[in-house]
């Protein structure tokens, strides 16, 4: 076995977390820089993975395999396919921005005791989450994946409950209460999901006798491992439930607005842009890979739920009074699209869904972080407290608008590509579903523009008049994101080339082929030759 690149990539942030946590209370800034440094190192490694990865090659590459818990048939098996690569890239990419954006979010209050080291804890936890997310993108052993899928809840839980948004309405006690409510809600939702999945994992163990994704998938394909239809369906539901909570899919979504609303903007980004992606990723890799038949069986229901998420999430977003909750519901709508794309079972849909995971990460990060900067200036999350910001802080307003436009997936920005692919992919197999989903396009424009209009335009509010424009650190956080959004919007090829082969593999797992066009166009073949 050659250099264990994947392990190292996951280990680096973990080590960083420990070191950061160890920094003495007084040396706060050192801790911040340390965390940033390690996150950048991780990014470098992620890039290395992307470089070492050969799109045409084996399905899983850079694989590692060690014995771990033989009694449970559990092995420490890592490996990445195209989907994993891009998502690891996304994670490693976003964390530095999250850290930079949250630079001052965890500075201790004067009142807190000397031994309490919130700053160190904050950044250590972020790195810990990164490590766990990365390894769950790498794991090709169901048990290994499950372990980190569950374990990452704990640091997330502390991030949400321990470091709330300082801009809150009402008293501190009230805010603290809401915060811990949000944290507990987050943890319980995901824990219940995880435990139900645990039952399914055990079931899988009983049926299959081991946890190796590759072996099981191969056995399923070869027909050497046949599950009773009902068993497969039950197991599928067990897995899917957990992922649907994480994703989140209507009606299991209500933890997200609380979590995102109460936590600081960077943490909110961490939740929706990084951690939740594990859910959709797992649907694609485990649900479809392990239980192809059951996936097809469940598709109609899932599609309906996804549709509800899309429309419902968008409509509820329109009705929000809290900026961050609005973004949260927008995310719910977007996750609806992702799940739609995954279960449309067409290569356009699934490639689109994968791109969507990345693009949604970037766009939400841009929008949410700018919103965070805005909120930190005014000290309020209520939309009604803003107005005319573009007059006093044009750059902030401009970046906010671009983030918003990305959210409503304007062509030329990355999300458009993925959203359109998802729509086309869905439409190709389920025209009606596809058409209903396109309503989401209009609604997205509605909530985004309403938000922009209410906060940024109109006469300048008194409290806003003295608001400073983005500072250098903040510009440095937002600018690269916007650049990426545009870059991937006009040249998504860099991603699709990596993703497409993996998607084809998944398609073959579920034994699905794209529906043929009614009319075979000769010119088309010529085009593909290009």
């Amino acid at each position, binding site marked *: 076995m050659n250099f264990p690149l994947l392990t190292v990539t996951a280990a680096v942030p973990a080590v960083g977390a420990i070191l950061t946590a160890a920094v003495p209370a007084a040396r706060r800034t050192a801790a911040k820089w340390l965390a940033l440094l390690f996150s950048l190192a991780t990014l470098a490694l992620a890039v290395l993975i992307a470089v070492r990865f050969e799109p045409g090659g084996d399905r899983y590459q850079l694989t590692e395999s060690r014995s771990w818990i033989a009694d449970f048939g559990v092995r420490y098996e890592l490996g990445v396919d195209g989907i994993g690569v891009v998502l690891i890239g996304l994670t490693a990419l976003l964390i530095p921005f999250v850290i930079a954006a949250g630079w001052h979010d965890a500075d201790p209050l004067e009142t807190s005791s000397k031994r309490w080291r919130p700053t160190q804890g904050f950044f250590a936890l972020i790195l810990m989450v990164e490590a766990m997310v990365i390894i769950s993108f790498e794991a090709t052993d169901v048990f290994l994946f499950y372990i980190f899928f569950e374990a990452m809840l704990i640091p997330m839980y502390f991030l949400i409950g321990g470091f709330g948004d300082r801009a809150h309405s009402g008293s501190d006690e009230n805010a603290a209460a809401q*915060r811990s409510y949000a944290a507990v809600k987050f943890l319980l939702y995901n824990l219940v999901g995880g435990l139900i999945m645990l039952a399914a994992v055990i*079931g899988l163990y009983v049926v299959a006798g081991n946890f190796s994704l590759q072996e099981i998938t191969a056995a399923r394909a070869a027909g050497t491992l046949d599950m009773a239809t009902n068993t497969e369906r039950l197991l599928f539901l067990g897995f899917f439930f957990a992922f649907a909570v994480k994703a989140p899919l209507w009606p299991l979504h209500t933890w997200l607005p609380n979590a995102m609303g109460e936590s600081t903007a960077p943490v909110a980004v961490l939740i929706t842009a990084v951690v939740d992606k594990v859910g959709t990723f797992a649907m694609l890799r485990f649900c479809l890979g392990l239980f192809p038949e059951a996936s097809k069986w469940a598709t109609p229901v899932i599609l309906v739920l996804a549709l509800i998420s899309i429309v419902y999430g968008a409509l509820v977003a329109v009705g929000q009074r809290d900026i961050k909750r609005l973004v949260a519901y927008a995310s719910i709508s977007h996750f609806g699209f992702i799940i739609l794309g995954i279960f449309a079972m067409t290569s356009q849909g699934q490639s689109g869904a994968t791109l969507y995971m990345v693009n949604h990460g970037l766009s939400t990060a841009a929008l949410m972080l700018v919103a965070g900067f805005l909120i930190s200036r005014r000290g309020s999350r209520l939309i009604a407290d803003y107005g005319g910001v573009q007059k006093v802080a044009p750059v902030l307003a401009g970046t906010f608008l671009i983030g918003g436009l990305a959210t409503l997936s304007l062509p030329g920005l990355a999300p458009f590509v993925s959203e359109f692919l998802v729509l086309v992919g869905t439409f190709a197999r389920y025209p009606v579903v596809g058409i209903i989903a396109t309503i989401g396009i209009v609604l997205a424009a509605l909530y985004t523009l309403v938000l922009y209009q209410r906060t940024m335009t109109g006469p300048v509010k008194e409290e806003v008049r003295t608001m400073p424009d983005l500072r250098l650190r903040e510009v440095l956080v937002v600018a690269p994101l916007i650049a990426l959004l545009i870059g991937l919007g006009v040249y998504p090829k860099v991603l699709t080339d990596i993703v497409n082969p993996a998607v084809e593999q998944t398609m073959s797992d579920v034994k699905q082929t794209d529906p043929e066009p009614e009319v075979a166009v000769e010119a088309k073949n010529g085009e593909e030759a290009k």
Partner: protein
Amino acid sequence: MSTLTSAHSLWTLAADTPAGRIPAPVIEYAQLAPTLIVVGAAVVGILVEAFVPRRSRYYVQVFLAFAALASAFAAVVGLAAGGYGSTKAHIAAMGAIAVDGPALFLQGTILLASVVAVFTFAERRLDPAAHGNRVDSFAAQAASVPGSDSEKAAVKAGFSTTEVFPLALFAIAGMLIFPAANDLLTLFIALEVFSLPLYLLCAVARRQRLMSQEAAVKYFLLGAFSSAFLLFGIALLYGYAGSMSYAVIADVVDGTITKIDPALAGTMGNDVLLLMGGALILTGLLFKVGAVPFHMWTPDVYQGAPTPVTGFMAAATKVAAFGALLRLLYVVLPGLRWDWRPVMWAVAIVTMLAGAVIAVTQTDVKRLLAYSSVAHAGFILAGVIATSAEGVQSVLFYLAAYSFGTIGAFAVVTLVRDAGGEATHLSKWAGLGRRSPLTAAVFAVFLLAFAGIPLTSGFTGKFAVFSAAAQGGAGVLVVIGVLSSAIAAFFYIRVIVLMFFSEPKADGPTVAVPSPLTMTTIAVGVAVTLVLGLAPQYFLDLAGQASTFVR
């Protein structure tokens, strides 16, 4: 499910001395060494109480206890290494005591747990020194009336109840025999031997003596009550099989018994004796493991007893009792599998759910942990029901993982104190994480382990028992198990929320800085919790090798 005989072969070895034939009276002292050492040490401890001057008793007792337990553990390891756990496993002491894998594994676990528990017994730094004497968590003079002059005098004189060490040793000795007992009489005697000292230990708390005494009374009365049931069960079983020996009873139950005299033929036909007897014995054991509906003593006793004792009880008693339960069900009553499995199913389900649900609204840390231990008993029962080698293995592993976690958790509880002694009311724990992050973090680790969060021993154990149960065809049980552990997770999380996310109160408790003794206890607890979470393979192997009963 496989046929009876093949199922037998899973967990029994052909013993080299077939039961029934009366062997020449011979006691294999070497193989009983662990127990004998502990008993001997206990006796010596009593003599120490009698003859060693009060000043130095404490040190002598601590040393004695530690030495005894350590050497006993060494003996266990020696036996295991000598192959008595697997190949040379057999029945010693004229059929009274089994020396086999499960016995040795459990004895080892009990001894190690006892060592760390005894450390917390010996802790004398937590309470402020009274009249210049360091004091431990035990009453200066248990006999004196709380608040009376005699008590004040005793405190002033710097008395301390060093008898706890020999008492503990006696209890441990009983616990060592309990899971190894191979006939019903030994079972009963062992039960009493470890119960009686525990009753006393509950009564000797330094603070809140009223509650301590109340706990002792309740524990004693209910314990005696349950042992009466057990005894009557034994009587009926004896009446059914005409023998005390597990092996013989098992043969009779299976109907594979060779020589049948008319009387036996008469009773053998009467299954009511058998079933009632079995049920009553189960009652006695379920009482000890704290399964619903025999659990109601746990919260009160756990709360009232001195915290070190609580930790010791919670851990060691469970191990011993489950050991005995396993042996009873796997060696004596496998023939009745189809009768007791459904019943145990019900018990397990009720135990898991009730434990988890009731704990949700608890306001006292010790009671909370008590109910959580009830819930855990339910989880372990799920493993017991599997009736397979995996089942035994998973239960053994779970017990080891759980006991250290529990002792560690209770040790942490002893640290959080205010003027009135330990501050066990949850409201006082608010903001502990802000005041002393380390303590809170350690406690959080234990809680997460109890909640079965991955990367902790709790998760590995839970996975082990549930997967064993599932393989045993108890899928429903598994689903209910995960649901109840979801409920359980809720109250563990509540404590974490309290410690980390709520502002510390002005008059909140302080965290005492313990001596290396308690520190070791906690450290061991954390270490075991994490190691068994991250790299459990070795210990799973150990439990796996130790998962076959001799018969």
